[in-house]
């Protein structure tokens, strides 16, 4: 059920590009009926405006029928002046409608109907009047499931683009916040909004983003992930170069640092670019809790990131190639537990890792009530049973579960899946060349990370083009009174966030 992107012919729609609306309303309505031949949810409401026939055309379900039928039409027919019937007049009369505009071509009219607007076509008039009374059902704003916090706002984006942009607007009450809009996708014509702060985001970045978005030619955009893959710098890389979030406060914080947000209609996941590697191990909660715990948790997460990537490989390398590294007593107990295991360590590790991944994937699809219990019990019971049966050894179960736990601590899911994937090549390298292979693998990985750029910003900054002042926010989180500059990599001019040395201190008590 995938869409093909380029090469699809667009000639079918070309011919009706410039066709104007004919004065005869019946012909126009027939044409529209032909276009929407098997769509039973298109409503044609025939009414009389003065002495003329008129049709009200809309798609059921996309409009707020209450407003149209009760209010708009009623207001329309009060004191109707027959001669002057145009958009201006209707706009004056109908006050319960958001906006009223005109449309002159058939294609445009059809697009407006598809957008969810109501179209009024009057006989002998060669313009159609578009009335905006959208009222489709939407999900209410609630806590996002994928990013929940203990302390912080509990709002999350929804699928409607206007709700999302309004959520961000509610956070940033500034006229510098600009919202550009595009429509991408030939069939879906998804609205996409590009938001940025004019005084902070570099203009070249915005231009580049718009250029890349305009180059997209695809059938349909159903999710922001499509756009992400189509505008990335290096789509073949394992690592994400665009961040996505479901929380308005994260989006607003990134906007304030000079980044660009892309809001896509139909999905609550908003894209943020450009991004650096270290952002993926930062959680929004780091900024809301006290800085002591944030420092500890960030250091812990960095260590666990390395563990999640390297621990199974390290274990395999050490027990297979470099047994001299293990302390003697530990080595003897590992040897004791491996006595009856038929597989070499590498194969055992691969089996356990694949089983763990399968458990995870299954756990997503189970109903929520059973899912939790099964994943925990499943891991324990299966692990224990496998050890008893002599298929895997107990140290391996410990290693694999620690790795799994470590990979769950990565706050952003797209980075966690990259790390999960990269574990396997590391494991194979370790099983073939021992620690030498692990070192080679990590050097190649490090080089790849240092080469990567996300919209011109080096991926591994501030560690890789080393910038000591930027490191304040990477491995630790300095208190808010110390964070006085914006990241310099992309915000070139306006880097001072607030006055320096704002450290709060208590007034000396006067006795």
């Amino acid at each position, binding site marked *: 059920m995938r869409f093909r992107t380029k090469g699809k012919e667009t000639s079918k729609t070309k011919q009706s590009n410039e066709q104007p609306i004919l004065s005869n309303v019946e012909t126009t309505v027939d044409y529209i009926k032909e276009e929407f031949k098997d769509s039973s949810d298109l409503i044609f409401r025939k009414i009389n405006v003065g002495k003329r026939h008129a049709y009200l055309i809309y798609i059921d379900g996309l409009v707020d029928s209450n407003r149209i039928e009760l209010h708009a039409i009623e207001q329309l027919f009060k004191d109707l002046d027959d001669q002057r019937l145009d958009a201006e007049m209707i706009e004056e009369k109908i006050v319960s409608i958001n906006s009223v505009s005109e449309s002159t071509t058939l294609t445009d009219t059809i697009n407006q109907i598809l957008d969810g607007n109501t179209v009024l076509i009057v006989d002998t008039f060669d313009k159609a009047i578009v009335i905006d009374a959208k009222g489709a059902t939407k999900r209410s704003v609630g806590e996002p499931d994928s990013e929940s916090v203990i302390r912080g706002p509990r709002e999350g984006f929804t699928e409607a683009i206007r709700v999302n942009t309004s959520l961000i607007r509610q956070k940033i009450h500034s006229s510098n916040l600009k919202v550009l809009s595009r429509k991408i996708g030939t069939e879906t014509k998804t609205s996409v909004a590009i938001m940025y702060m004019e005084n902070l985001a570099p203009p070249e970045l915005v231009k580049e983003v718009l250029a890349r978005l305009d180059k997209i030619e695809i059938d349909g955009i159903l999710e922001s992930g499509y756009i992400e893959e189509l505008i990335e710098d290096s789509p073949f890389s394992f690592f994400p170069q665009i961040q996505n979030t479901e929380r308005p406060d994260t989006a607003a914080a990134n906007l304030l640092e000079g980044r660009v947000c892309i809001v896509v209609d139909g999905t609550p996941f908003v894209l943020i670019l450009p991004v650096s590697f270290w952002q993926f191990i930062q959680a929004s909660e780091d900024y809301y809790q006290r800085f002591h715990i944030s420092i500890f948790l960030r250091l812990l997460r960095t260590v666990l990131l390395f563990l999640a990537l390297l621990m199974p490989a390290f274990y395999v390398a050490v027990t297979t*190639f*470099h047994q*001299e*590294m*293990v*302390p003697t007593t530990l080595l003897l107990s590992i040897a004791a537990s491996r006595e009856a295991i038929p597989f070499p360590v590498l194969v055992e590790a691969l089996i356990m890792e694949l089983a763990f991944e399968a458990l995870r994937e299954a756990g997503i699809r189970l109903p929520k009530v059973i899912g939790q219990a099964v994943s925990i019990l499943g891991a324990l019971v299966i692990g224990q049973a496998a050890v008893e049966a002599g298929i895997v050894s107990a140290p391996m179960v410990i290693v694999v579960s620690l790795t799994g736990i470590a990979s769950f601590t990565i706050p952003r899911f797209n980075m966690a899946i990259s790390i999960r994937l990269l574990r396997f090549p590391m494991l194979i390298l370790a099983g073939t*060349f*021992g*620690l*030498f*292979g*692990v*070192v*080679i693998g*990590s*050097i*190649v990985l*490090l*080089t790849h990370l*240092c*080469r990567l750029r996300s919209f011109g910003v*080096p991926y*591994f900054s501030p*560690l*890789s*083009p*080393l910038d000591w002042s930027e490191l304040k926010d990477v491995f630790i989180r300095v208190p808010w009174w110390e964070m006085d500059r914006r990241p310099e990599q992309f915000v070139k001019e306006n880097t001072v966030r607030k006055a320096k040395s704002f450290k709060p201190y208590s007034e000396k008590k006067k006795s």
Partner: protein
Amino acid sequence: MKQVISSFQLAIFIANLIVSASLITLPQILTQIANQNAWLTPILVTPFLLGLVVLAVGKGNVLQEKLKQHSMMHRLLKVTVGFLLITIYIRDLRAFTDFTMEALLPKTPIVVTMLLISATLYYICAAGLEVISRITLIQFIVFSVIVLSLPLMLTNEINWVNYMPIIQTNMVANLTKSSFELLPWVGEFVVLIMLLENKNCNKSIKKMTIYGVGFGILLLTILVSLNIAVLGQEIVSKTTYPNYRMIQEIHLTDFLDRLDLVIVILWMPVFLSKLCIVLYLIDKTLFQTREDNPTSMFLFPTILTLGILSMALFKTSMVHLRFTFLTWTIIGLVLEIFIFLFILFIRYLPSHNSE
């Protein structure tokens, strides 16, 4: 797009070139010559080196400006640097594969190790100078933290008596001989002259070069003196990899007894970055015709050829050791003197016009 590195990264390159290859076998040779006074050797060499640097670089950015021109002298300089780099690369690659065979992977055929390393180096070099400098920076900082904390980790094993007869017969003669042996190794950093045109000009290169040289010598001195203190000059003179034996002695508790391989795997990337920058400079000096390509198309065949040469030229590891410490000392010293003279000519003679 011209690749630019900062002065701090240049200093790190210099320190890397001084210390990461020298620590494999050189302390054994120094101790054989100078016995327990071998740790004085790097200290004695330093003022000499720093004097040469000050003399060559002179004031301000004149050297950088002069290097941008083209003349016969410049071409001679490039070719000499390229040739020196080729010898350094072959020697170091073989030393590294020998060490890997001894410490990490005894039975893997040496060709496989060499191919694996060459493939990795190709991937890194093809990414350009900026990437090389970034990864060198990160790895080198980790490595220097380890080396600087080695004295703390080995406190229990240090036996001050091992230094003891500081004044002994033939002391001056021995120290002179070992300084002569050490000089071409630490003088390798002159090849980085070719990087000067890639540097942005905001800080004085003289200051950063001095810092880089000083820091590299400091790390080397720490390592050589710890070797003597922990192991005693007898054992250091007899083992081919004294630093590896020394870190086997780390015994923090019964549990943290075997940290040697951990330190080795933290040293390996630093050494590989050294090989990387050497390769990049070989490619730049010998094969690159235009300024804007990051690497020439000869990079890949060069890597393979040099790798095969490093296997083929030395039949056994004994031959390689003899080459390294007897032949290469002379070759390296002569080439470095020539390079230094060329730099002096370019710096101090009136400039020629490019054709």
